[in-house]
């Protein structure tokens, strides 16, 4: 009797195993097929565009929709993506510009949603996600020339991004430290922009979240954001706070930062540039030729980045590596960001002394009751674009 049961049990196990194996193999089959077909379509599209290019440039221009049509189509399908969490204001401004509702899909921190077409108009930073979409190295999607972009600067809805900030109180109490920090950081940025390859290697050495190739791509793209303003003009004074671009950012921020707290919303509507930035420290730092600002009040300082260690922040890593911080008498500790405890909070409660954030996030934080002060604007133009596949938006 017992043996019989055991036998039965064995049989059932065997049947189950066979069933799972067949299921697994069938599942494998179907996904393989999918891959093959997607590869095929990709190949055909790339050859198509190549043919178009060689045939006539005018036919290619006619083939793809205008930015306005693209935005309208994607918005009507509800397939515009952004990460949210304070990164969405430029996209909302663009949607408003073309008369669309300001809703968007929550985009994950990879481009899979764009790859599988659940998001047809996806947010991307020129130096990061766009590279992943276009390039062919490991971890990238290899779309190369089959994608187009909508640039926030060209559309007139650019908002300034990566800056350096601290609390107003810290700046007032430690003016020498602040100036010395800006001076050395800008020296780092200058060197990084002149030698992007070396900067990428340095960042990679300091604990990288991405591959060396992507780091290099990022360095070359970040260089453009640091050295070009929103109108496309070259910037020679790195880190300057351009009045017009700052005003545009503040204006858009007031329109699109939606705050449920009425007190905060009131404060936001009354905010002026003087509430969020002070140019005197940067001016003091750039006026100096030797980097001597008197004894720093606080010699050991920490800066928290907005994201993981990558070439987006190459200036600070280069300054660290080249000893520029040592030269001005500062011992600097670079802390990576990316958690949900944002850099604004960390700076505001004194966990760190300096932070890198987007100007819009600083404006929101100050509306909410913080007293943060931008002391330098590293990125002179918006690095945010909307990326789309050309064949999705053909006329």
């Amino acid at each position, binding site marked *: 009797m017992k043996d019989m049961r055991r036998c039965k049990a064995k049989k059932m196990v065997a049947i189950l195993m066979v069933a799972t194996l067949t299921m697994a193999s069938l599942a494998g089959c179907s996904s393989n097929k999918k891959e093959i077909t997607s590869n095929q379509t990709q190949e055909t599209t790339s050859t198509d565009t190549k043919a178009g290019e060689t045939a006539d440039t005018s036919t290619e221009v006619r083939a793809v929709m205008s930015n306005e049509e693209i935005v309208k189509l994607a918005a009507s399908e509800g397939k515009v993506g952004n990460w949210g969490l304070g990164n969405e204001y430029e996209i909302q401004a663009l949607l408003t510009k073309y008369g669309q509702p300001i809703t968007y899909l929550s985009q994950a921190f990879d481009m899979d949603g764009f790859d599988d077409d659940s998001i047809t108009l996806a947010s991307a930073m020129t130096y990061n996600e766009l590279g992943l979409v276009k390039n062919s190295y490991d971890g990238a999607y290899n779309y190369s020339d089959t994608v187009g972009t909508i640039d926030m600067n060209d559309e007139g809805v650019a908002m300034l991004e990566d800056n350096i900030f601290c609390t107003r109180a810290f700046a007032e109490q430690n003016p020498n430290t602040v100036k010395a920090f800006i001076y050395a950081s800008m020296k780092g940025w200058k060197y990084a922009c002149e030698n992007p390859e070396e900067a990428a290697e340095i960042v990679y050495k300091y604990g990288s979240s991405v591959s060396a190739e992507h780091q290099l791509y990022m360095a070359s793209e970040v260089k453009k954001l640091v050295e070009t303003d929103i109108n496309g003009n070259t910037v020679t004074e790195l880190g300057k706070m351009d009045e017009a671009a700052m005003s545009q950012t503040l204006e858009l921020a007031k329109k699109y930062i939606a705050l449920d707290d009425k007190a905060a919303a009131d404060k936001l509507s009354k905010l002026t540039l003087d509430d969020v930035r002070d140019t005197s420290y940067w001016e003091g730092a750039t006026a100096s030729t030797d980097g001597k600002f008197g004894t720093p009040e606080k010699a050991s300082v920490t800066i928290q980045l907005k994201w993981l260690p990558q070439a987006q922040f190459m200036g600070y890593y280069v300054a660290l590596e080249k000893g520029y911080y040592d030269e001005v008498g500062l011992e600097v500790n670079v802390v990576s960001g990316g958690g949900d405890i944002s850099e604004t909070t960390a700076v505001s409660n004194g966990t760190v002394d300096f932070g890198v954030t987007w100007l819009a996030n600083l404006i*929101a934080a100050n509306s909410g009751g913080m007293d943060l002060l931008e002391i330098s604007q590293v990125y002179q133009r918006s690095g945010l674009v909307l990326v789309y596949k050309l064949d999705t938006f053909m006329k």
Partner: protein
Amino acid sequence: MIKRKKNIFIRFFRNPKVQPFLSVILPVALGVLVFALWQTQILHKILGTDTFTLPLPSQINRIIGDNLPKIMLNVKATVLVAVIGLAIGSFIGYLIAVLATVFPRWGAGGLSIVAAFNAIPIVALAPVMTNWTKDVSSDASVRSMVAKVLVVMIVSIATMSVNAYRGLNNLPEFSLDLMKSYAAKKRVVFFKLRLPNSVPYIFTALRVGVPSSVISAIVSEYFAEYITGVGRQIRENIVIAQYATAWTYIAVACLIGISMYCILMMFEGILLRNRK
């Protein structure tokens, strides 16, 4: 032996007529005390924080009042996910427990695998589900809803199946022998003995399941494509440093959990009135 007269307070507290009232009054009193300390900022001094990081109840109250329609919209999204997920998950969980009881040889082992699902962190499960449900619908709000419900469901299955299994098998002593002595068939044993015996265990599972379904719903909203829900609002507001608003939504999340728990207790009171 001398019987010492007990203190009047102790006698008062031990009085069976006073007991039920006390079990309500004491927790409420504690709650009121915490709120009083909070509003008067004594709590801030104890915790070493400020009104910016931990806003006053009056401020939270004001924000709730100012944004009631928007908050209700988010509450609706979260509650819907939690309730649907809990209902489906608990149903499947109970079915698994029944299967495990019917096939005891496989049951215990299978159940431990199901229980292992409980150990999967929601933060890991939520993005996976979001990716899995990409093909469910072209409408982002629908597929996000499915993804969130799936997360809640998986969490609920584990709690329910383990508890229901216990209810179906931890039978009163000798009751099974008694049934056997009646020559009762397995089916009769199941419907007359096991099923009724499992009802209180279902409620035990739900007591754990209701709060965890709300938590699962909130966390899975973090990763959902379609932006809605109390959890998403908490995250958005914390990241853009709007702590007062974030705390408002945290308070709302607490209220959702508490009211769902109260509703459950009411059902339990009605359904289990005749027991014990």
